[in-house]
């Protein structure tokens, strides 16, 4: 029976460490290692190769990788040097953030741009996929105030659970703080942290 290593969601080099532990206990059984990033897959494969294990097959389903080895005999040939298995890239974040830094889309016509941003927000709320957060800065904050045409759409998004962060400094600059109609007054710390923690930031 295959010895199973479920290393999904673990930051590297943990999948490799767990693989090594299983390797030592395999006693003639094959291994099945499950990881959830391509980088972990590559690291585990590299470790297996240097340790003398034979890969049977790799299946990829729904972004997860199932690595099957043939029967493991003996102990790992190579010493585990963790520095060889440090991830080169940062762990990816979670969710999409939309960064709206003006009250319109694009350059050219202000009138068209105002209508486009309104249409954009009206359309997002209709989609089957939703961003986790929307951050508003500079004149983008004007979309969140009471008389904004975008207000009902943003309220619907907020009800759905989309986090709306509105730059307090910007509201203050435009003298609109009292008129905020939706979202949470926020600051540079929260907004920049939200962006950095997202897997994707879309700037409008």
């Amino acid at each position, binding site marked *: 029976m295959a010895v199973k290593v479920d290393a999904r969601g673990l930051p590297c080099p943990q999948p490799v460490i767990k693989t090594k532990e299983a390797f030592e206990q395999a006693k003639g059984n094959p291994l099945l290692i499950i990881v959830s990033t391509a980088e972990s897959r590559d690291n585990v494969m590299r470790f297996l190769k240097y340790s003398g294990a034979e890969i049977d097959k790799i299946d990829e389903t729904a972004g997860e990788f199932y690595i099957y080895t043939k029967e493991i005999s003996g102990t790992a040939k190579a010493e585990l040097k963790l520095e060889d298995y440090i991830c080169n890239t940062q762990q990816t974040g979670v969710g999409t953030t939309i960064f709206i830094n003006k009250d319109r889309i694009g350059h050219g016509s202000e009138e068209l741009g105002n209508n486009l941003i309104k249409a954009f927000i009206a359309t997002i709320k209709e989609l*089957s*996929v*939703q961003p986790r957060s929307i951050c508003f800065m500079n004149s983008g904050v004007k979309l969140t105030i009471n008389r904004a045409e975008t207000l009902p759409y943003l309220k619907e998004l907020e009800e759905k659970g989309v986090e709306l962060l509105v730059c307090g400094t910007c509201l203050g600059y435009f003298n609109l703080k009292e008129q905020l109609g939706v979202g949470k007054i926020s600051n540079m710390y929260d907004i920049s942290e939200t962006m950095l923690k997202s897997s994707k930031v879309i700037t409008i």
Partner: protein
Amino acid sequence: MTIYAIITFHTTHFALKAKKVLEKSEIQFETIPVPREFSSDCGFCCKMLWEKKDGIVTILRENSVEMDSVYRWERDEEIERKKKFRFV
């Protein structure tokens, strides 16, 4: 269930002109992107309650705003609001 009228236009210029003209009237309407059901073209349209459409068409005609079509759009806002979605 709410019944809306969707009025489409030949060009974006007419759609934006319609918005300007209608904003001066008291009639409730919205300018939204043309729903996928009616056209895959990019464009704005005007959305209003079905019973308001005759008044709006009259105003647009009086102001020489060329219209393309008027569609009937039945929508259950409650169901729309509860539709399943996922965060990405």
